[in-house]
């Protein structure tokens, strides 16, 4: 084994019922290297990581770790931690109702000589760990009091403090805003200096080029190759991931149309939800794609939620198609022709233990009511149609949705709403955790919906994709609607508006 190599995996093969998830995949990680693991949804990135960390039991292949004789096989994340592999997942897996310090030391609490937990010492140590990473938190506070970004940092701090040689970051940036991403990168570079090997899974291409040294590409469970960042520029990387040359991502937007004359779809006056979004006025016209921009926690999701009734608006009035309406819960909004794809897929999107078919027809069925069950043949037809339309990768429509990869789950939720044929569709981060090819598909779909006279509200952390698809944008800051941009949208203009500079 090479001196610097900390982890090698050779010929890893793994099958799920009906799907070959990985076949003969190689992976090499060196000391002090940030190594991007790239691929489309369902390419096998998460599966490979789960193999390395002992969650999945691979069928063939072997893994070696520096300093350990012979092949290593982990059977649990605990095993993996013992050989120095720590993982921080896409969705933070910590205990929100414990303090930051408790989360850092859970399962390995320092003991006093009486065999009780040494609270003082671990609070002190925790504070030092967080300070070293340059993150200002009060470690005695409950974790849930902090933003998702901080929670993620805590997860990383926990991993790092456990003396890891290999740190796996599975899409850590998908719920962070730009500033937070920078902070994370700083931490990553610091760890790199210390000689930790980092495996970085992300869908954001620019982030790969910002921090990574090496790239390993997977496609459909196959190993495509290992490259240095220099030899694989963006376009080539995308081509390697998709297995074909990418048709142009940039120009998918049609001509801009003035919608202000068309019928009013939604009109909010002084709508607000106490604690999350301050009173706002907003008019949305039929056929528009309206973007909501802002940093994470700026109230951009909450604005949408207060319209949809996911968070019941406390004040203000809402008119839908020029009729004043009262929405107290989502089903009311649905009956008015709305739909909402929420940003937190795991918590508010998928029903994990139900099948793909059931997940797709759920909203339509809910609209129909409990006693008007959709005939099975109709359910099958709808499910098949959308699996085909959105090319959802699943063994069958009776597969449990939790067995699908994140991006495919997202497509199922999208299908759920398309099936209800909404007039006004709110898409909150529809492209989060989704590969480049599908992102383009979704953006095209949004424009197609708008072309059919539907109205779409599009919320995303990626300004570029909003600029491409939206014809108007609302900017949120600290729970307040601060600006509305129309005309020629550019990333720069939007960024300035978000930051608060005068236009």
């Amino acid at each position, binding site marked *: 084994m090479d001196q610097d190599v900390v982890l090698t995996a050779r010929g890893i093969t793994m099958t799920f019922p009906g799907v070959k998830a990985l076949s003969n995949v190689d992976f090499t990680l060196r000391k002090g290297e940030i190594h991007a693991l790239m691929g489309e949804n369902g390419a096998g990135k998460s599966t490979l990581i789960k193999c390395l960390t002992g969650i999945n039991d691979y069928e063939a292949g072997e893994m070696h770790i520096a300093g350990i004789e012979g092949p290593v096989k982990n059977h649990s994340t605990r095993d993996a931690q013992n050989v120095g592999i720590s993982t921080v997942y896409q969705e933070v897996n910590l205990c929100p109702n414990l303090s930051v310090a408790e989360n850092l030391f859970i399962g390995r609490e320092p003991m006093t000589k009486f065999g009780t937990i040494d609270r003082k010492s671990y609070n002190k140590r925790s504070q030092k760990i967080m300070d070293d990473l340059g993150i200002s938190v009060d470690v005695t506070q409950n974790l849930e009091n902090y933003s998702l970004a901080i929670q993620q940092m805590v997860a990383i701090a926990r991993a790092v403090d456990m003396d890891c040689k290999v740190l796996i970051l599975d899409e850590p940036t998908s719920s962070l805003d730009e500033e937070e991403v920078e902070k994370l990168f700083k931490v990553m570079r610091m760890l790199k200096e210390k000689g930790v090997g980092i495996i970085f899974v992300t869908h954001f291409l620019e982030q790969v080029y910002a921090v990574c040294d090496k790239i390993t590409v997977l496609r459909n469970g196959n190993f495509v190759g290992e490259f240095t960042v220099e030899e694989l520029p963006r376009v080539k990387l995308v081509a390697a991931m998709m297995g074909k040359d990418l048709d142009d991502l940039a120009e998918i937007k049609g001509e801009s149309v003035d919608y202000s004359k068309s019928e009013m779809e939604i009109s909010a006056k002084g709508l607000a939800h106490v604690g999350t979004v301050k009173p706002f006025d907003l008019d949305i016209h039929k056929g528009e794609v309206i973007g909501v921009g802002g940093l994470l926690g700026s109230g951009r999701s909450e604005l949408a939620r207060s319209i949809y009734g*996911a968070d019941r608006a406390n004040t203000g009035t809402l008119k839908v198609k020029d009729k004043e309406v009262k929405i107290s*819960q*989502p*089903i009311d909004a*649905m009956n008015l022709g709305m739909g*909402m794809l*929420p940003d937190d897929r795991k*918590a*508010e*999107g*998928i*029903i*994990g*233990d*139900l099948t793909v078919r*059931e997940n797709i027809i*759920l*909203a339509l*069925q*809910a*609209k*129909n009511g*409990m*006693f008007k*069950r*959709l005939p099975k043949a109709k359910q099958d037809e709808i499910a098949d149609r959308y699996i085909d339309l959105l090319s959802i990768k699943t063994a069958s429509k009776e597969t449990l949705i939790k067995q699908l990869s994140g991006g495919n789950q997202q497509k199922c939720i999208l299908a*759920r709403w398309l099936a209800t044929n909404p007039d006004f569709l709110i898409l909150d981060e529809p492209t989060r955790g989704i590969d480049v090819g599908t992102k383009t598909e979704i953006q095209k779909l949004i424009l197609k919906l708008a072309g059919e006279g539907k109205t779409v509200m599009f919320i995303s952390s990626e300004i570029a994709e909003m600029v491409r698809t939206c014809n108007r944008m609302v900017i949120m800051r600290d729970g307040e609607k601060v600006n509305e941009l129309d005309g020629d949208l550019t990333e720069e203009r939007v960024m300035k508006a978000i930051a608060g500079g005068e236009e």
Partner: protein
Amino acid sequence: MNTDRKKAHFLTKVKNWPLLLPVVSLILVMAVNIVHDAATGVNPLSFFIISLNETTSNGTILYGRIIDILNRGSEVAILALGMTLVVSSSAGTDISVGSVMSLSASFCCMLLAGYGVSSTNELAVPLVVGVLAALFMGALCGAFNGTLVAYLGIQPMVATLILFSAARAIGLLLCNDLIVYVRNDSYGYFGGFTGPIPTPIIIAAICIAIVAITLNKTSMGMYIQSVGINSKASRIAGLNSKRIIFLTYLICGLFAGVAGLVNSSRITSADSNNIGLYYEMDAILAVALGGNSLGGGKFNLAGSIIGAYTIQAITTTLYALGVSTDQAPVFKAIIVIIIVAIQAPPIKAYFRKKSLEKGVAKA
């Protein structure tokens, strides 16, 4: 070669059949009976023999161990229906069902006999009023539990603990601290016989049929499971999560009322302190034996029903084996431990690994 693959396919199908373990448990209990009968020189199949016997009080009736199990297991089977739905939707259990059975029976008998009367031969109100009253009382209790759990967000165990302890006492209040005897043949019908068949079996069958048809013809099953798996996501998708949880408790209470009626009809009286005693435990156990996760979500109604009758089969078997009533719970506990253990994930995983290794060795 082809038959081999077919066989393998069939085996995996059987292995993935959700009812496999409940059915195996039931068969195990039956097997004990057969072996015991054979060992003691009785006809080994006597467990399965059903005969028509003449009795002085009830005329010609069906007789046999299976009939006895189906008859005695009726109340738990009825309770298990509601309990399954409650567990699925709220990831909690309704521990008040036994007490609610008692309260429903007390309310019914109090009306039939008149307040303060401890024994009557004449019904004070028409029978149907009493029956509806029992069902109403059950549903009312269910609604109370449902309100606490769904709308006030109280943990199911705590919420139902209230009626668990209070319902029996309320029943005693209604009956003026008496055991009310309704010595009228018409009241004994629900615990008696319809032609040769014990009425409780018929009532249980009707309840099962109603629930099965409802689940089949409406989307209730999917709604309940969806809410149980992820109530937040269900709400966003347009389900009224709270109302659905409320509904399951209401149904559970209603069935407790039915079970209370049957139980009290068997003894044609309302014995507040004893009707439905510990039945909540059997109902919860039935749900667990049926392979349902008490963590909510996916449910399997057939499993719960088989579970309910398995519990009764264990009891009946123990009596047949000559175990005394006082010691029966010990043996019951041992059997339950075994059945629950073979369904536990680590043990399942162990067997799966074993069979995998066998497959590898073969290859």
